């Protein structure tokens, strides 16, 4: 590619939404409903019709307040599951909207299982049953109903733009053709999801992307905020999912659906040893194997043919590899127990608490920047409806704040974006690295796996190992700066790697900072292997002069409102 091959496109919006997953789509829809005159722009790396966590579908609505229960019960459930490190205001404000968000999804076309009286059929206190295979096409169709929503697909945003008034837009490039996109916005919502691919995955070879979280969610939103000094929280609260072996398909469908218990190789149930929290469940299979009682299984032998057929259909709606595996191997669940394993660690604010430190209104610590969904911290167990609720809360705040937000002038816009657009050009024209992006990605994943508590380290780490990881991630970050791109596809991979490395740096700093082990299923600090009640506070971080600085923040127990103060 020649230097002049990179076309410059400029766009303007009142409300810019980076990322068109569940949170981003619903944010756009909510904003358009409030004000049909706003210019709302959604920028998505893939296509909103099939992108993000829900590209393959979703099995259930896991965050719903079933009749007879309250949002305060949900809050206490989240507090128990996350070992107290949660923000009450954030969890409560999303939980208050779970049910209206669900009804809205149904109005849009989501199929929800109902009884003869027309009431939703629930699974426990918090779950309802749906057909979620087409949830993204449903949201994408809803976006099209509003004339003031513009969706730009296949554009990868790499960085937020900053002027004297805070965040004033974003810059990125097309993944298909040689064009940079410079976007001016009065208010920007980051809704890019969490981070997969930081650690060496369960299947590191051909099936390296057969993972729980979408391998295309690279933590871009965390990285672009961290780079400009946004405060982040709880990156040490990684998420490790308990999954079906090999296919990394969900286990809840079987465990909750047909009531199959987890058993070790001796046929003993073992959950009582580790507790029933998400961390405890993640801990079980690994700990049993270490004690010589692995592998572990979901005990499904003896299921009826009707139950088996229902399971096969359920998996086709969200994780089809599992159904194929059962038929291909002949080891169907009624004949053979289903082996389970823990995944590599992810950073994901919709399940655990990692993400932007936000106020109750979903403002980040940077003026003009807001966060919702998996990229926002402090509120675990968001799932689909919580992510959507956060998107709606965020745009309501953004619209309120617009009166005090001006729009950057054209010449200033190009000026603040020039450093990045020049960088894109340089990667297209200078080719002198001996490494390619895949070499460095492998090196990063290996480093994180071995020295920052990945699968091969049995999720354990210590201060010395984290130091080694920190040094190597810094080296890899330097090396990534020299990577060159032969086409826009390689350009995309390079910026995905750079974002992951930024997230890794933050994860390592947080793991070092928390000198205790609070969630043993998600990671064990071998220097401090016990929970310590003196650590009941948030570990937060922000970048100052290129270094990750750790700050701590108290819990907000019993408070339903939080404002940024410093």
């Amino acid at each position, binding site marked *: 590619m020649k230097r002049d091959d990179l076309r410059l496109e400029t766009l303007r919006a009142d409300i810019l939404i980076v990322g068109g997953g569940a949170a981003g789509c619903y944010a756009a829809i909510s904003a358009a409903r409030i004000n049909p005159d706003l210019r709302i722009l959604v920028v998505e790396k893939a296509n909103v019709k*099939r992108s993000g966590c829900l590209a*393959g579908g979703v099995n259930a609505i896991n965050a719903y307040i079933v009749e007879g229960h309250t949002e305060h019960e949900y809050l206490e459930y989240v507090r128990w599951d996350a070992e107290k490190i949660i923000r009450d205001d954030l969890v409560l404000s999303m939980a208050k909207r779970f049910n209206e968000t669900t009804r809205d999804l149904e109005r849009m076309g989501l199929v929800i299982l109902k009884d003869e009286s027309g009431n939703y059929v629930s699974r426990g206190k918090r779950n309802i049953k749906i057909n979620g295979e087409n949830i993204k096409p449903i949201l994408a169709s809803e976006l099209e109903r509003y004339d003031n929503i513009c969706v730009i697909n296949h554009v990868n945003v790499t960085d937020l733009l900053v002027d004297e008034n805070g965040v004033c837009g974003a810059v990125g490039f097309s993944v298909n053709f040689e064009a940079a996109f410079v976007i001016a916005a009065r208010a920007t919502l980051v809704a890019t999801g969490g981070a997969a691919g930081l650690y060496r995955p369960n299947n590191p070879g051909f099936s390296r992307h057969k993972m729980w979280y979408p391998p295309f969610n690279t933590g871009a939103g965390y990285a672009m905020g961290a780079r400009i000094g946004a405060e982040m929280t709880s990156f040490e609260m990684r998420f490790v999912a308990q999954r079906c072996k090999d296919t990394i398909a969900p286990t809840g469908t079987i465990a909750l659906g047909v009531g199959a218990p987890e058993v070790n190789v001796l046929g003993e149930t073992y959950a009582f040893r580790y507790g029933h929290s998400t961390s405890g469940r993640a801990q079980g299979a690994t700990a049993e194997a270490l004690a010589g009682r692995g592998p572990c299984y979901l005990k499904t032998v003896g299921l009826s043919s009707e139950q088996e057929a229902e399971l096969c259909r359920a998996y*086709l*709606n969200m994780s089809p*590899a599992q*159904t*194929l*595996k059962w038929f291909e191997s002949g080891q169907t669940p009624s004949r053979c127990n289903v082996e389970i394993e823990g995944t590599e660690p992810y950073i994901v604010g919709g399940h655990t608490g990692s993400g932007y430190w936000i106020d109750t209104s979903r403002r980040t610590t940077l003026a003009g920047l807001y966060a919702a969904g998996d990229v926002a911290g402090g509120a675990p167990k968001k799932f689909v409806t919580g992510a959507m609720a956060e998107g709606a809360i965020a745009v309501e705040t953004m619209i309120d704040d617009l009166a005090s937000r001006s729009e950057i002038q054209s010449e200033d816009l190009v000026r603040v974006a020039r450093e990045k657009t020049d960088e894109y050009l340089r990667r297209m024209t200078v080719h002198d690295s001996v490494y390619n992006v895949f070499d460095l990605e492998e090196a990063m994943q290996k480093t994180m796996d071995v020295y920052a508590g990945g699968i091969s380290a049995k999720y354990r780490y210590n201060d010395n190992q984290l130091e080694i990881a920190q040094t190597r991630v810094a080296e890899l970050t330097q090396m990534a700066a020299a990577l060159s791109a032969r086409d826009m596809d390689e350009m995309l991979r390079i910026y995905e790697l750079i974002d992951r490395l930024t997230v890794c740096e933050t994860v390592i700093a947080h793991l070092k900072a928390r000198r205790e082990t609070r969630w043993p299923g998600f990671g064990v600090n071998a220097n401090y292997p016990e929970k310590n009640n003196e650590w009941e506070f948030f570990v937060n971080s922000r970048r100052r002069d290129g270094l990750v600085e750790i700050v701590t923040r108290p819990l907000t127990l019993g408070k339903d409102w939080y404002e940024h103060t410093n």
Partner: protein
Amino acid sequence: MSIRIDPKLCVGCGACIEACPGNLIKRGANGKAVLKRPEECWGCASCLKECRFKAASYFLGADIGGCGALMQIEKVGDVAHWIIRIAGRAPIDIPVDRRSANKY
């Protein structure tokens, strides 16, 4: 974990290229869809759902227990027929109606 696109059946409509959440499917020199790096597929089956010409099929990597079986989707109205083809056996047809919710 990956998909295979049959160049004999692909008409180059681009639906799978548009839908892939990883931007992994590109248009080849002959105008048809190609998966550049099969090892990067997530296995979400978006391409199978979008392809109207049954050109895309789904298979398990050998590293996760695959033995070469292929899975496709044939849509009839609201019903998606997931067809699993295993060598030496009659095709298995699992119909899934998008109007009915998962029981589990």
